[in-house]
């Protein structure tokens, strides 16, 4: 099947505005603005079953429907802070199929009545931001952004906003704080951004991949979109495959593809001909999946991955072969979360600090079994107590690695830390 999101793989120059237009570009935006009421657009996206691709999987149309028409102005913000270890899909979309993404931003803005939209990019995406600025200028030039679009009363401007290196800004309220020129620390919710968002105004925050699906739904209809994927997971998904595989990369596949197909059919199998030992299904935020036959044959959709005691998340699949010990893996993930904790809430700030100290003791071979038990207790104590998902996520790999790979946490554990 031809790609729907990674269309540049089939149409090489689709990042140029005239090529994008020749291939149906902006027809969805034109249809929405000239033929549909904003409410109709929201209903179409609701009916499509599209769920947020940033990790949480919340129904996109429902999110848009929460925006109240009693408080103005409204904003749309595209979350392009892509920073989850193992995730690199949004960058490919923005670099290579930018107009489909920007068209999605524009349709979302029309649907919720926003005249201004921001794209929040992580600071490292410096050159992606520069390139998007050019694409935005191309759209303004061609009349797809600016005043009175398609001769209607609707006007829209899109701006990029560059972050500066903070994983936490992928959390939507931290992201909004960051656009406001503050430290990126999450807000206490409720109120949710749909009511109290950017500058205290109703705001929709959507992931890049989520928005890139929107033009397809408007042109082809909700029923067509639902026909792709599985019952609870409509559409296609970009799986970012990394770690011990021969062909790491982004793979756009229907929901319901199995781990085995992703790793062996698409990813070319495990490096050095070794066996896959574990899978992180959602990057560093993931529970560790024991890669037995049952797991490998599990379809990758929201409900099925949950049966493995893990989450689909942003679908960043990190493959770990049998040369690796899980204590090494969680040393890496804990180090990451300790560094990225914003310091606002105590369970996360102190919890990640202590988890790091404990795993370092374990790595030095100090009283391994007692420190492992204590590490597990600290992680468990953090769960359901953190202000935002970052703190919660920091514990997922820790508790599951200890529970599912106990042999790796024995003083006698042998083998390399990684291959």
């Amino acid at each position, binding site marked *: 099947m031809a790609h729907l999101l990674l269309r540049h793989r089939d149409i090489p120059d689709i990042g140029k505005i005239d090529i994008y237009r020749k291939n149906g570009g902006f027809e969805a935006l034109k249809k929405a603005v000239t033929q549909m009421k904003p409410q109709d657009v929201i209903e179409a996206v609701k009916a499509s079953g599209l769920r947020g691709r940033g990790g949480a999987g919340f129904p996109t149309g429902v999110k848009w429907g929460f925006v109240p028409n009693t408080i103005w102005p409204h904003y749309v913000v595209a979350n392009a802070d*892509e*920073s*989850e*270890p*193992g*995730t*690199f899909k*949004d*960058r490919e979309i923005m670099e290579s199929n930018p107009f489909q993404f920007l068209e999605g931003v524009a349709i979302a803005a029309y649907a919720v009545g926003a005249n201004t939209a*921001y794209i929040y990019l*992580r*600071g*490292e*995406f*410096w*050159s992606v931001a*520069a390139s998007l600025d050019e694409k935005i200028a191309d759209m303004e030039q061609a009349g797809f952004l600016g005043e009175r679009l398609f001769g209607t009363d609707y006007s829209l401007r899109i*701006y990029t*906003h*560059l*972050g*500066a*290196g*903070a*994983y936490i800004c992928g959390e939507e309220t931290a992201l909004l704080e*960051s*656009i*406001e*020129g*503050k*430290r*990126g620390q999450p807000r206490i919710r409720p109120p949710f951004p749909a009511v109290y968002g950017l*500058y205290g105004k109703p705001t929709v925050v959507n992931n890049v991949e989520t928005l890139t699906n929107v033009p397809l739904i408007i042109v082809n209809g909700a029923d067509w979109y639902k026909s792709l994927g599985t019952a609870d997971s409509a559409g296609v998904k970009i799986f*970012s*495959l*990394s*770690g*011990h595989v021969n062909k*790491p*990369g*982004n793979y756009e596949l229907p929901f319901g593809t199995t781990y085995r197909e992703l790793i062996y059919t698409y990813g070319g199998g495990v490096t050095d001909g070794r066996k896959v030992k574990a899978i*992180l299904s959602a*990057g*560093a935020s993931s529970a560790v999946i024991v890669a037995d036959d049952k797991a490998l044959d599990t379809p990758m959709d929201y409900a099925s991955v949950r049966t493995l005691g893990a989450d689909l998340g942003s679908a*960043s699949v*990190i*493959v*770990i072969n049998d040369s*690796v010990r899980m204590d090494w*893996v969680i040393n*890496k*993930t804990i180090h*990451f979360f300790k*560094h*990225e904790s*914003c310091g606002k809430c105590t369970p996360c700030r102190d919890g990640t600090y202590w988890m790091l100290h404990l795993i370092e003791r374990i790595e030095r071979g100090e009283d391994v079994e007692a420190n492992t038990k204590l590490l597990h207790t600290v992680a468990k104590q953090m769960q359901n107590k953190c202000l935002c998902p970052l703190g919660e996520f920091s514990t997922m790999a820790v508790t599951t690695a200890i529970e599912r790979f106990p042999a790796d946490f024995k003083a006698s554990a042998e083998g390399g830390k*990684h291959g």
Partner: protein
Amino acid sequence: MLAEKYPDEIKKILAKYPPERKQSAVMSLLHLAQLEKGFVDRHAMQEIAGICGITETDVAEIIGFYTLYHDKPEGKLRLQVCTDIACALRGADEFLEQLCERLGIRPGETTPDGLVTVEAVMCLAACNKAPVFQVQGPDGISYHENMTVDKAVEFIETARKGVK
């Protein structure tokens, strides 16, 4: 003065936000201020605080919170290697170690000529192209993917010739 050096850029940045929300411009202004010397000095902080209508402490807070801002001079180029889990599975730790060995420095240190500071950083969203590093310098930030130690050293040598 930023206002004299980058008048058009500052105007463009401020135009992105509602006129009463100038604080939103602080991050872009810091990126701009940092280009020339690789860090934000006291004068730039004061000027940015003035443009945004916030205090110098507010600006310092932002510099402290976000890892891409620096308040001290280091190498002209900051070469930042991702050593997170996905990259580490593909040899990023060894890459960093060997690169530093070739340069005769340790991670976090700067080459004696002041050209390059080598650091380990968190995920750069390029996990499929490890080893990968980004370079922060006078031209902003660029990515260098599918790296080998030889290719990295070659990049540094080319940069060194450019400086002389």
